[in-house]
């Protein structure tokens, strides 16, 4: 091979390795950075006025002066909005044309009664011809009514018109009955012919009204869709409406500006309308509100909301330290993550209390007593094997053995979870502690024994203190692992919802815990888009706990190495 080729291959190899190391070395930044950036938003964010309202009413926070001022301002802006909505819904101004329609209905019937003779002649025809002729006649008679209806629909707004249509329909039916009686009075007309007259004469206006109602239903669903969005944005109107709501999330508007903006752009600026597809099946369709409503009253309401968005919600930057100390309310949509942090703390500390003494004891046995005999090697091999068991199997073991067989508790409990976690981290602790003990120079042992100390005295008095800092490093790192493990606690300790438990409950109660709730809120939450910040906040909290533990371990180790160098 040519030298130049060998050199190129050499540089290519070097470059490949460097790139690989770069990827591996910076991957951790790639993971943590996005989570950290968004996770900070869980407790430092632009809040709306609803945030303070929620806190003061549910978590006993007091309102500051500026908060009260904001609430006052937003209430003023909202007052106008509700007035617009009221006036649309009652639609007082459309009563004039409606009266005209009623008049036209009565006059059409009266006119038709005057054509009695013509109608009678039609009724004497054969049934099939008869129906057709009546329909033709009716269309002419109802023309003015139809025009008036069209006019009214164009100008009409709100619910009154819909009510009016139903009323008209009912009245048409009853009027038609009277009308048929009137026509048939005194003449010898069959019952069938009479019914045909009654039905066919009003088929046309009723179909008009039906179409009108259909259009109005669509318009109304569109309006209601937008109104629902507005209520989601700023919360229900009155105290009574608020109390009627079952879920906390329905009692308040959006507490965070980012979600509020999303609600505005997705639930208010876009609406879903009910349409009948070609196959006759009703479908929901998403359209732009602006295009749909145009310049009508709902369009004006939309414009008002968009224009006065800031006044309605009063966005302001806030820091919410309660994220770490408050209980969650309504499936994590409001409040903090205190129970999860506390649960993780309980689980980790309990696991540590169980595992650390056992681990240290086993490490002492391995390093000071066992030597390299067959039994010791077998025990060592088992430690290695336990370290390789998948974590989910630990969870199953906790379920099948600790809970179902020896019944450390009825069902899941913090204690059962801690024992499982302790077992999981035991091999790591044994290994690191054994290594630390072995790193203690033999001269220490010989020195202590040489001074006449017993073996046990030498271990407790000299060797353990010498190895302690480095053992601490290993123990802290395994603590980090215990804090982050999920699979072992799924079946033994974790519950997805619940409040913080007291110290006395750890033997009987399951607890929420950060790792499990991160899974839960990512994969099984019914309103994932509303709790994005909580997801990130929880993940960031867990990362911070684990990284804090690990960094302190690294720090202790670095100090230790320095101390050793200085010796």
């Amino acid at each position, binding site marked *: 091979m040519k030298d130049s080729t060998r050199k190129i291959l050499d540089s290519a190899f070097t470059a490949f390795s460097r790139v690989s190391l770069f990827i591996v070395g910076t991957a951790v930044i790639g993971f943590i950075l996005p989570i950290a950036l968004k996770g900070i938003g869980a407790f430092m964010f632009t809040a709306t006025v609803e945030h303070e309202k929620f806190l003061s009413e549910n978590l006993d926070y007091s309102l500051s002066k500026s908060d009260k001022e904001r609430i006052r301002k937003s209430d003023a802006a909202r007052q106008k909005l509700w007035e617009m909505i009221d006036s649309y819904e009652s639609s007082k101004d459309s009563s004039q044309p409606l009266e005209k329609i009623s008049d036209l209905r009565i006059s059409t019937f009266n006119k038709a009664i005057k054509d009695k003779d013509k109608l009678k002649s039609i009724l004497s025809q054969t049934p099939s011809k008869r129906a057709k002729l009546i329909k033709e006649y009716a269309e002419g008679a109802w023309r003015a009514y139809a025009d008036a209806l069209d006019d009214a629909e164009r100008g009409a707004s709100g619910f009154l018109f819909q009510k009016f249509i139903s009323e008209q329909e009912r009245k048409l039916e009853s009027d038609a009955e009277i009308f048929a009686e009137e026509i048939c009075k005194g003449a010898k007309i069959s019952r069938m012919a009479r019914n045909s007259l009654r039905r066919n004469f009003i088929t046309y206006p009723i179909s008009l009204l039906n179409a009108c109602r259909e259009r109005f239903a669509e318009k109304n669903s569109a309006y209601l869709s937008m109104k629902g969005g507005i209520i989601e944005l700023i919360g229900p109107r009155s105290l009574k409406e608020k109390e009627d709501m079952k879920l906390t999330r329905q009692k308040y508007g959006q507490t965070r500006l980012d979600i509020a903006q999303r609600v505005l752009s997705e639930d208010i600026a876009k609406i879903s309308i009910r349409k009948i597809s070609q196959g006759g099946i009703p479908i929901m369709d998403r359209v732009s509100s602006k295009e749909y409503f145009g310049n009508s009253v709902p369009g004006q309401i939309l414009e008002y909301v968009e224009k006065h968005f800031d006044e309605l919600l009063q966005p302001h930057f806030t820091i919410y330290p309660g994220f770490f100390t408050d209980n969650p309310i309504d499936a994590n949509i409001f409040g903090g993550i205190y129970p999860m942090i506390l649960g993780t703390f309980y689980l980790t500390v309990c696991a540590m209390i169980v595992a650390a003494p056992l681990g240290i004891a086993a490490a002492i046995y391995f390093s000071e007593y066992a030597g390299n005999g067959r039994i010791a090697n077998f025990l060592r091999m088992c430690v290695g094997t336990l370290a*390789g068991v998948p974590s989910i199997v630990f969870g199953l073991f906790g379920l099948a053995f600790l809970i179902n067989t020896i019944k450390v508790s009825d069902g899941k409990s913090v204690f059962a979870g801690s024992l499982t976690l302790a077992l999981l981290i035991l091999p790591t602790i044994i290994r690191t502690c054994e290594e630390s003990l072995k790193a203690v120079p033999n001269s220490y042992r010989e020195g202590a024994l040489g001074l006449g100390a017993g073996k046990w005295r030498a271990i407790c008095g000299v060797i353990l203190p010498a190895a302690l800092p480095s053992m601490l490093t290993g123990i802290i790192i395994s603590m980090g692992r215990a804090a982050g493990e999920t699979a072992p606690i799924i079946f033994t300790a974790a519950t997805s919802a619940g409040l913080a438990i007291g110290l006395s409950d750890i033997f009987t109660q399951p607890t929420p815990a950060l790792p499990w709730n991160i899974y839960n809120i990512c994969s099984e939450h019914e309103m994932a888009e509303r709790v994005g910040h909580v997801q990130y906040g929880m993940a960031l909290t867990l990362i911070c706990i684990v990284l804090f533990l690990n960094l302190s371990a690294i720090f202790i180790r670095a100090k230790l190495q320095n101390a050793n160098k200085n010796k």
Partner: protein
Amino acid sequence: MESGKKHSLIMGGGQNFMREISQRIGRGLLLSITAIPTLAIIFMIFFIAKEAAPFFGNLSHTLEFFTSSNWAPSSQNSPHFGALAIFYGTAMVTLGSCVIAIPLGIFAAVCLNEISKKAAFFKPMVELLAAIPSVVYGFFAIVIFAPILQEEGGILIAAAVFLLGTTASIVIGICAGEIFAEKAFKGYFAKRSLLIKAIMILSGIFATFELSLSAANLKIESGTNAFNASVILAIMALPTIVSLSQDALQAVGRDMREGSLALGATRAETIIKVVLPCAKSGIAAAIILGLMRVIGETMVVWMASGNALKIPEPFFNFFEPVRTMTATIAGEMGEADQSTGSDRYHVLFAMSFCLLIGALIMNAAGQFIGGSFRTIKK
């Protein structure tokens, strides 16, 4: 006794006895604590086997378990226990993460140990990667990586394919061109090797380009799929592979490297032909232990793999959701454990029994290979 009064070196009977007893008790206590992991292993195998036994006792169910992919363990009328798709999903995700993690990990370890001068910075970074809890990896996979994959996946993969393919075709083109020119034409074309190399490189780049074009048009239906899980699992396995491989590389003596360099080998040749072969058992152990982390991992696959109960179509399609053993156990045991004694409960324990046995075998292999590597080191 005389000796007792004179505080002699020979202890009195009672004193001697007490000390002996207390030492024995202390030693016994330590031994029994040390035996906890051993007991745990035995109990673990026993209890999981006990709960799995009712399932394996039924021969037709067992046969179905390993041969069919019809999984409906909770069905009232006709329950099915075919776990083939689940085994396949596990294998697929494991294979995928191996393909990513092994070369990356070994290259990184080589760079960390032999090439980079910034090891003091990168080494703690790799350790931190190992410290991140698996559920956070899962969170990343489902909340951040999956949407990216779903929307920009095709372009991302095309870019990766193009970058990798171009560099690979340049390197392979040079090597192959050289060998081709030397061997195939017995030196006749040796002078024109540059031309041959250029042709090879260009055709390689062209093929890569075509490949990445088709990759760019790839439509990924769901961001949670085997590829997503493989990538994230690979990153999880990397710290294990990197640090254990680095240990193995460190154990290769300086004299080996010097011997090779003194014969005029380049650094790459030294590493590939001498250092890596010397460290191969340690690296193999590192890979096995990294693999174990992949197979035993629960949260990431549960969250990132999509949990679809079927073998992808075609079978190598990594952009389809799959389901793994650990995810099945974690996901279904919650629904099954109330009805202790049900078929579903037992089949899940049967699955974890397979998982446990697999892990034990791999662990033994890892310890055996790693152990032999350690003795060489001594």
